[in-house]
């Protein structure tokens, strides 16, 4: 059995989630006796391929082509399809990045195969791999298994495995593989990358963060949380819907499309705990959740929780904090 790990880089910089997926693959390989082939694609990726070869993998493939310099779904699909057809892996593992979700399902479908995306766990049970993913916005987990013929495609959510646990000690010499790509096969034209947020605040440096979610209901209620933030000496932040509404600037958004923070204290107020939010804050030292729904997924990562109405709890907490000073 063979597992192909598709890594991700942009302009020669790794997406670190690649190594988390490598850890997942190594774990699967230990259970199943599979061998691992790691792949890196781009315009010139020789040095990245060498880095990969330091990890415990059986084989490293470097796919180099001018048309892979900038990511396009067509270019990546066509290139990887050729590599998969040649390498004949049983499983293809990806990090669940925004780039992967943009092309990997297409790649799988182009081979008539399916993908289990956004997995948060992996087990070996009764002779097969069981993939764990979330459903219903994290309110339930699901055990999913593949059906039909290989190859089988899966992607792993950021933080589901630890990249620093990827085993090194490999001795495979990277091998270049040629792919056939023509400009006219690529229908999308990638243009410039840019940032919008002014980044006037650097939330990554804040020791305490008071984050609000849709439970706050109205922008006129935000001062309630701001007062708490002031009293506790923290910065205010939010889940995506609050920033989408323009109630707080986007630079204060926590999560996969916003900031990733790890303060010593993170208070999540009226935030359900969707995975795209949690990946941006679960590294916090102490997490407090205030939510009226005892089953909200945020409680899965919280150290302390208060189940109740934030409109009662937040003022009470502000008062207690002021008193204790």
């Amino acid at each position, binding site marked *: 059995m063979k597992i192909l790990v598709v890594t991700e880089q942009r302009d020669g910089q790794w997406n670190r989630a690649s190594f988390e997926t490598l850890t997942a693959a190594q774990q699967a390989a230990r259970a199943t006796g599979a061998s691992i082939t790691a792949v890196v694609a781009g315009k010139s990726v020789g040095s990245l391929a060498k880095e990969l070869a330091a990890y415990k993998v059986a084989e490293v493939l470097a796919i180099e082509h001018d048309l892979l310099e900038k990511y396009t779904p067509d270019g990546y699909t066509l290139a990887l399809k050729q590599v998969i057809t040649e390498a004949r892996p049983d499983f293809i593992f990806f990090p669940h990045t925004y780039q992967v979700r943009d092309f990997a399902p297409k790649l799988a479908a182009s081979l008539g195969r399916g993908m289990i995306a956004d997995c948060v766990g992996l087990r070996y049970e009764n002779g097969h791999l069981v993939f764990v993913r979330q459903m219903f916005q994290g309110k339930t987990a699901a055990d999913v298994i593949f059906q039909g013929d290989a190859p089988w495609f899966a992607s792993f959510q950021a933080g589901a495995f630890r990249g620093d646990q990827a085993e090194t000690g490999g001795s495979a010499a990277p091998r270049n593989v040629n792919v056939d790509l023509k400009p006219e096969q690529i229908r999308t034209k990638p243009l410039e990358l840019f940032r919008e947020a002014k980044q006037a605040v650097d939330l990554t440096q804040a020791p305490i963060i008071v984050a609000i979610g849709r439970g706050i209901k109205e922008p006129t209620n935000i001062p309630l949380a701001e007062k708490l933030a002031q009293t506790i000496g923290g910065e205010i932040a939010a889940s995506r819907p609050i920033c989408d509404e323009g109630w707080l600037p986007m630079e204060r958004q926590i999560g996969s499309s916003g900031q990733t923070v790890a303060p010593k204290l993170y208070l999540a107020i009226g935030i359900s705990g969707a995975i795209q939010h949690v990946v941006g804050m679960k590294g916090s030292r102490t997490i407090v959740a205030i939510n009226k729904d005892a089953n909200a997924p945020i409680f899965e990562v919280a150290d302390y929780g208060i189940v109740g109405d934030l409109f009662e*709890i937040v003022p009470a907490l502000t008062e207690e904090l002021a008193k204790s000073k």
Partner: protein
Amino acid sequence: MNIVVCVKQVPAKDAPLAIPEGAAWIRETDIGFELNEPDGYALEEALRLKEKHGGEVVAVSMGPERSKQAIKEALAKGAERGVHISDDKFYELDPLGSARCLAAAIKREKFDLVLTGLQSDDHGFGQTGVLLAELLGLPHATIIMQIDAADGRLKLKRELEAGWFQWVELPLPAVLSIQSGINKPRYATLKGIMAAKKKEIATLTRAELGVTVSPTQRIERIYVPKKTKKTEILTGTAKEAAAKLVEKLKHEARVL
């Protein structure tokens, strides 16, 4: 510009979910359903493009009878027609099977653009738009935050991770997955709701579409996830719970 927009009906945000023992889907009785939130943004974007460039908007939804409500909402907001793929067991489909059914229905339409939401709040496959593009043989882009259409081409703002964006261009026809927050969805007016009553909703079944699916994956069971951390729940009145929390943060966690 003729636009097909895929709208899915999902359990309401605050619906208490009950999972029958060993089941792969929730118990549907006694809970409310609503339009999948990202699809509301996709619908709004479709309506705005139509208002600017002309054409019609067709809302497609697959699911049991109840999912017609998602189509009716689209019609009330200004979509011209609806297509309901009637399927009581749609939740047993894998992402590819589900996309095959939707693609078969979309192929019957004359369209320039297909819009989907980025992700459904129930299955959360996050794959359907990309799969539709492959099955329809069209270019695509996902996580879209802005659409500018001119001369048969689209200029699109794609969201990337950590506050980054990218412009991309592609030719029509195409498939786009729309990210939440791209616009401010309108509310249906009373006039719109009345007008919707006269609009057509065609019904199709999987058999009529001629789709046979062989699943590539199967959900064995769903369950409430195990906690990874031991959460200490602080109880009492708001004041009591708050006082306990301050105490804990000071002397146990030592973060204050």
